[in-house]
């Protein structure tokens, strides 16, 4: 009989194995050893249907002579009052379960399947409370079979000690979309290596030596999913040298194809994927929001969702939140449907009119405003779900303590805690704890960046959670729950508005979960505290002061200056930071050159001591624009700064009129570089036809071919966005930019509002913006 060993360490990876059940990789707390552990893991799924069909299925399964155990049991369906009689199919391993289910769903498509397509990591987490990078205590035999496993921490702690992961960074020396990389750069343990791709054998041998010697836990690659791993594979086949990319011997790389899908009217591109076994592969270009939160955020996503780190890095937050809900269901013993089954309840036309709406979005008071506070409900929709127990199975049910949803003829059961609020509660609590910790923290504090990354990962999960209530394919979705949340949201925002007006504040703008208010004499945090308390009192939802703007400009629509736009503004907080929405600098399809100049303009404005002195910065802005335009004309702007990057919205054949992006994609198509919808194409505007030059063509374009006028026009637009609220008219700006006129603008072109202290727009009296004269 073999003896037991007690191991302490962090859980690195988990995946199914056809023979051994489940494989776990543990990073020992000594930071040196890695343990490959295994455990038998019988896996069950459930089938529901009428008695006759289930009997047929039973006989069929018996006839297959597979090692499965069948039994009739009762399990709880989330949406049913009574337990549901189901057939339990217990297989020996997760792999066997997956294969059997795959077979049955085509052979018996009319039956209802539960717990059938759940990732192993979630099943295992439900039983053992493990999660990626969890500290564990394991009792294992000499042969590595797990006898007992205990998880020593939870994903909800905010101070987790860092895990001593050994990271190997692999990056080609240039973007393979652009041209064939020449060298592979490798960073490891503070050293870096350069391996030329042309010495193919040498590269493989050296890389293999590094992998064997250091045995890194994590391969962090750039263009890894998309290019590098495929390239290495080609070389491996050519030279018959195998790189131990996966830590598990004999297991290669798990590949998934690229794809695209439509989401809320946008085309989303998902690149191909390459996942490893026992070693983590993260490819930065394919990691959702890597640029937002980095590795720390990826780890946090994995911790809170319990998905494998490699999976968590590559899935959308929607899959993340859905996984969390599945985990809650498994732990509560609730069946997880394979497909969504809840259809919309019957509604009258009137109640549909009432219910089928989103959050309240106001039209802001156009113009420049000083000393404005922005107050936001903290994670409004998730807070509503948590606070009012909004969940697919609680809406529309009365119960003794049922509550009424405002506006809608609907009640919510308060006697039973809903699955969605139960899932959200620890996440919301952690987020609020992090927010509070961050509020008073010095940005130089070592915890600052990890906290920020974690908070950012949570934000996306929480944002998506609401959408998933109404998403047509969400397993635990129900449109009525979605409607209840927006109804509570509208009510809360209106109560906040009423509270503000009752306390003498002026409401300049409201946007779903935030409002912008102003009050004579109010300019400090303490001046807005009574309002926060009043709103909390009236709504029951947590609210915070996002900041106080020294001044903020709400912009009008570009085609019609009389029409305000909800989400186009820029404002300078008292602490000197900017909040900018909807203008060129925030847009992905703006060239770096234009973005930089717009930022420079903002920085010049930031030098003004107060809103009333902003116009004094105009001469400096005039000089700036002239200088930058001169540089453009003299071809002194690096081409890379002029790059425009746009997404392809459809395949080339589907375009009726080719957009500039499509024309650039067509150029790439000609040289065999095929792009699919959702992918970005980078190009320059050039003179003559076809008017664009794709950046990823092998040759650099002639700088003389750049369409100077086009870029000047783009700059003019971006400059006008910033200057319009200061009262500068487009014609004036054009004079400044495109003629040799000095700053001394001709009389009449600088409207009076420009010289006023602040063109304050009252609640009631909005002065007509400069309209053409009306002849009656």
């Amino acid at each position, binding site marked *: 009989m073999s003896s037991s060993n007690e191991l302490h360490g962090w859980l690195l990876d988990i995946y199914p194995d056809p023979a051994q059940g489940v494989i776990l990789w543990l990073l020992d707390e000594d930071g040196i050893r890695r343990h490959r552990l295994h455990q038998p893991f019988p896996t069950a799924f459930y089938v529901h249907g009428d008695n006759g069909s289930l009997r047929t299925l039973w006989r069929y399964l018996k006839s297959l002579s597979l090692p499965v155990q069948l039994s009739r049991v009762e399990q709880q369906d989330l949406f049913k009052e009574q337990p549901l009689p189901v057939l339990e199919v217990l297989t020996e391993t997760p792999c066997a379960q997956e294969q059997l289910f795959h077979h049955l769903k085509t052979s018996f498509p009319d039956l209802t399947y539960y717990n059938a397509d759940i990732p192993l990591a979630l099943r295992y987490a439900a039983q053992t409370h493990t999660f990626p990078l969890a500290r564990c205590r394991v009792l294992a035999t000499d042969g590595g079979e797990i006898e007992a496993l205990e998880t020593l921490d939870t994903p909800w702690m905010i101070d987790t000690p860092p895990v001593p992961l050994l990271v190997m960074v692999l990056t080609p020396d240039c973007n393979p979309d652009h041209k064939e990389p020449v060298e592979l750069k490798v960073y490891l343990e503070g050293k870096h290596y350069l391996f030329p791709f042309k010495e193919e054998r040498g590269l493989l041998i050296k890389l293999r030596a590094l992998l064997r010697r250091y045995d890194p836990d994590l391969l962090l690659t750039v263009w890894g999913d998309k290019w590098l791993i495929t390239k290495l594979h080609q070389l491996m086949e050519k030279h018959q040298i195998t790189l131990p990319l996966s830590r598990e011997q004999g297991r290669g790389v798990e590949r998934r194809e690229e794809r695209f899908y439509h989401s809320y009217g946008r085309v989303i591109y998902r690149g191909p994927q390459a996942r490893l076994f026992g070693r983590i592969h993260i490819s930065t270009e394919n990691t959702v929001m890597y640029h937002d939160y980095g590795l720390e955020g990826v780890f946090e996503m994995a911790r809170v969702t319990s998905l494998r780190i490699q999976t968590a890095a590559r899935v959308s937050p929607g899959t993340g939140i859905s996984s969390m809900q599945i985990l809650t269901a498994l732990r509560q013993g609730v069946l997880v449907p394979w497909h969504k089954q809840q259809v919309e309840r019957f509604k009258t036309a009137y109640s*549909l*009119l*009432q219910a*089928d*709406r989103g959050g309240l979005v106001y*039209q802001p008071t156009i113009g420049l405003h000083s000393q404005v506070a922005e107050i936001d409900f903290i994670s409004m929709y998730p807070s509503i779900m948590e606070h009012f127990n909004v969940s697919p199975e609680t809406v529309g049910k009365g119960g003794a303590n049922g509550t009424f949803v405002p506006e809608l003829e609907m009640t919510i059961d308060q006697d039973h805690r809903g699955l969605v609020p139960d899932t959200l509660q620890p996440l919301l609590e952690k987020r609020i704890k992090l927010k509070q910790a961050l509020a008073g923290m010095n940005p130089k504090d070592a915890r600052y960046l990890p906290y920020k990354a974690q908070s950012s990962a949570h934000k996306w999960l929480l944002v998506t959670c609401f959408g998933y209530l109404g998403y047509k394919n969400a397993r635990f979705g129900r449109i009525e729950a979605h409607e209840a949340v927006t109804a509570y949201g509208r009510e809360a925002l209106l109560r906040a508005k009423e509270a503000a007006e009752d306390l003498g504040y002026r409401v300049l703008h409201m946007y779903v979960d935030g409002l912008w208010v102003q009050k004579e004499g109010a300019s400090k945090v303490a001046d807005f505290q009574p309002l926060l308390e009043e709103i909390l009192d009236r709504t029951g939802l947590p609210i915070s002061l996002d900041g106080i703007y020294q001044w903020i400009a709400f912009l009008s629509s570009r085609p019609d200056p009389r029409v*305000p736009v909800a989400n186009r503004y820029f404002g300078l907080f008292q602490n000197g930071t900017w909040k900018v929405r909807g203008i060129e600098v925030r847009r992905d399809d703006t060239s770096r050159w234009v973005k930089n100049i717009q930022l420079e303009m903002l920085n010049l404005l930031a030098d003004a001591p107060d809103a009333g002195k902003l116009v004094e910065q105009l001469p400096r802005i005039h000089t700036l624009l002239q200088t930058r335009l001169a540089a453009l004309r003299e071809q002194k702007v690096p081409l890379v700064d002029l790059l425009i990057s746009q997404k392809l919205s459809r395949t080339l054949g589907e375009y009726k009129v080719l957009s500039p992006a499509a024309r650039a994609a067509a150029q790439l198509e000609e040289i065999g570089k095929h792009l699919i919808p959702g992918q970005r194409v980078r190009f320059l505007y050039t003179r003559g036809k076809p008017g664009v030059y794709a950046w990823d063509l092998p040759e650099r374009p002639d700088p003389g071919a750049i369409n100077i006028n086009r870029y000047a026009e783009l700059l003019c637009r971006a400059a006008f966005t910033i200057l319009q609220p200061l009262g500068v008219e487009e014609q004036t700006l054009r004079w400044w930019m495109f003629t040799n006129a000095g700053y001394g603008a001709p009389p009449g072109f600088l409207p009076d509002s420009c010289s006023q202290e602040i063109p304050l727009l009252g609640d009631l009296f909005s002065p007509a913006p400069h309209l*053409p004269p*009306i002849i*009656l």
Partner: protein
Amino acid sequence: MGRTVSSITQTFLKERAAFARFRRALRSSDQRVLDDLFASARKHLSAASYASHALPFETFLLSMLLEEHKEIIRLRQEVAEIRHVIQQ
């Protein structure tokens, strides 16, 4: 985008488009005034959305009236101020 009820902005644009023939037959000076009226209705789309009235155009008309009345109040105040200055 999966909406059953069209958004208030879509409704507004549809209602405005329904008057395209009316607008076309107006003198160009009148067309501009009509455009002003529609622009003023647009300022209260969020309230119109919240109201979710079965006949949204009534809400748009009321929004136009509201803006008109605001203008009257503003002009009255201006007249009063000018009168005050003249009397001094």
